């Protein structure tokens, strides 16, 4: 077996030429799982990752540095539409698993059944997917958040929800005893307590011979006679991120896991896999609202895991509520006002609490490459989703008031302050417009959707392109609709399923 290793870009001084049975693009939830599962079955694997390797030994020195180093465009990716929706995307070894909250949910049964019913995807019944979820959960150590690191912010919201009789509880996360509840999960993890893929799947892939190249950006997919034969791209400079050298990997199977924004852009750049016209369309993002609250008591929301609790009382209405609390540099701009009034609120940072809710979106956005090479993402919230967001704001405000908040600040452009249930009712009756909502999103999905019909899908039910043989997609692009839960575990389980298929149907005889 070839010795596996992780190769940082700067180590390479001349153009690189590799060959392997499988080349994987991207090291996040999809790519890392595919690489590990295939390497473990004895296949030669090369993985290329555009981002760099960060862990507790070289953790960036401050929050701004974290954004610059671990996010695409320093976290400034934005969806354009009735209201601009920031959607930060990770770029590091481990992909977005490096900078997410670590929340683990299985794909809801009713979503799996809907995909079978509406998109004809067979083999994804809940009982058929169960072994994949169990396998993933074991490897990433998915466990409920302990009270030790839950944090007062989330405890308070749960107290409010329980007073109102709402269904709620602690979330499952991929973390171990090294998680000390530093509160900076979205800036990477300074203690490596959050078990992102660079700490489990990637080392396991490497132990089985996979070669992992960091700061390597895939650009051109090579196809011959309708079959993928390799990929080429650039090795990037560690300081400027500009192309420094070229690389080429010849492979039999190409697994693309660059995320639901960059996978379709790669296909479009190469003019591939788009006979259906669905590449880059059907974008779902789980747009999220946030409601902050000011308490008399100290909350110290930055202590503890920021996303450690959920309220799922309203999932039938398309609303899932989850904890969200961020460092001051991200809190201040989304609190109302500027000048002295904003400063006064920030002066009470210790007393501020915050919770979020994501919407099960029916809106379909799109993505393509813009003039400067950055993604151009269009996403116009449909009326139904605006109504869901309005209700989500009202429910969160109601819970905060039940928990004892004195002032509640929903993230709306006209900066209302809610002090009583009457204010909440007035807000609901008034109705909201899409352009009034200040939202964020973290879960792009659906831009290379799978399906049973090649006319209305990009990939088959195992993620293989209908148009190019041996070209697979194993990231959230595959999902035909939104999930209604954080997608990390679903991406991993489906990537595992695709890897099994690749091994059995494509490589077993090699």
């Amino acid at each position, binding site marked *: 077996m070839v010795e596996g290793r992780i190769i940082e870009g700067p180590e390479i001084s001349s153009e690189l030429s590799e060959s392997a049975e499988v080349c994987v693009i991207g090291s996040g939830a999809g790519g890392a799982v595919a690489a590990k599962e295939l390497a473990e079955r004895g296949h030669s694997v090369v993985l290329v990752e555009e981002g760099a390797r960060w862990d*507790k030994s070289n*953790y960036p*020195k*401050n*929050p*701004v540095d974290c954004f610059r180093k671990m996010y695409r465009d320093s976290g400034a990716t934005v969806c354009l539409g*009735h*209201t*601009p929706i920031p959607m930060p995307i990770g770029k590091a070894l481990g992909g977005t698993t490096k900078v997410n909250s670590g929340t683990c949910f299985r794909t809801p049964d009713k979503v799996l059944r809907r995909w079978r019913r509406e998109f004809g995807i067979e083999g994804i019944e809940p009982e058929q997917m169960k072994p994949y979820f169990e396998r993933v959960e074991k490897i990433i150590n998915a466990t409920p958040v302990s009270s030790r690191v839950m944090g007062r912010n989330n405890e308070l919201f749960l107290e409010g929800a329980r007073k109102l009789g709402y269904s709620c509880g602690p979330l499952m996360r991929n973390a171990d005893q090294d998680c*000390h*509840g*530093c*509160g*900076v999960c979205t800036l990477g993890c*300074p*203690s490596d*307590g959050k078990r992102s893929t660079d700490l489990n799947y990637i080392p396991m892939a490497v132990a089985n011979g996979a070669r992992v190249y960091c700061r390597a950006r895939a650009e051109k997919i090579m196809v011959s006679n309708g079959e993928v034969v390799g990929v080429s791209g650039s090795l990037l400079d560690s300081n400027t991120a500009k192309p420094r050298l070229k690389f080429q990997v010849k492979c039999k199977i190409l697994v693309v896991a660059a995320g639901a924004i960059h996978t379709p852009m790669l296909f479009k750049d190469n003019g591939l896999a788009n006979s259906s016209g669905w590449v880059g369309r059907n974008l779902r993002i789980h747009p999220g609202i946030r409601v902050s609250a000011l308490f008399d008591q100290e909350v*110290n929301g*930055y*202590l503890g895991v920021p996303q450690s609790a959920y309220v799922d009382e309203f999932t039938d209405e398309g609303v899932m509520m989850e904890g969200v609390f961020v*460092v*001051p*540099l*991200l*809190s*201040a*701009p*989304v609190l109302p*006002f*500027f*000048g*002295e009034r*904003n*400063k*006064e609120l*920030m*002066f009470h*940072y*210790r007393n501020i609490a915050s919770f979020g809710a994501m919407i099960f979106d029916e809106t379909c956005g799109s993505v393509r490459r813009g003039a400067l090479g950055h993604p151009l993402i269009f996403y116009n919230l449909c009326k139904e989703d605006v109504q869901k967001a309005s209700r989500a704001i009202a429910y969160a405000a109601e819970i905060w008031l039940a928990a004892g908040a004195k002032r509640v600040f929903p993230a709306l*452009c*006209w*900066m209302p302050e809610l002090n009583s249930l009457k204010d909440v009712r007035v807000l609901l009756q008034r109705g909201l417009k899409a*352009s009034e909502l*200040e939202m964020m999103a973290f879960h792009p999905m659906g831009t290379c959707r799978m399906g049973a019909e090649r006319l209305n899908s990009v990939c088959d039910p195992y993620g293989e392109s209908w148009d190019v043989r041996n070209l697979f997609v194993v990231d959230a692009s595959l999902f035909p609709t939104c999930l209604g839960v954080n997608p990390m575990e679903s991406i991993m389980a489906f990537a595992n399923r695709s890897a099994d298929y690749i091994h059995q149907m494509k490589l077993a005889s090699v």
Partner: protein
Amino acid sequence: MPGVEIGKRTRRILEDLAERIIPSGGMDYPGARDIGLVDRLLELTGNFPRRLWAVKILAWMWELSPILFLRFKLLTSMTPEQQVEYLESWEKSRLMVRRWSLVGLKAIFMAVFYNEPLVWGKIGFEPGKCYEQVQGGKLNG
């Protein structure tokens, strides 16, 4: 700031904007001028010519914008009170683009301001023990 030259006029625009977004004085924690916010911003953008260029364009768009909205004055020609009133008109505008422009402006200055350990202490943000240990005393670079 050594190494980053943006011109006196551009600096003045940025300083005025920063001071209106995070005013100095008042309560017991610093404002933009107190921590040299514009210098901090330029430090962060100075190594990236495109970002520095973007900051310059942003500054001048704000400087010239009052003319578009029939104020017939440059931003830096206004008194501080007029500047606050002008920025509030963006905050409360019915036009989404104007509201979000102000959020963007807030985000730029506040992201730099609230990245300062000195400010963290004043607002009671004390990152967890583990975070501090991992930082290994590197918080000030």
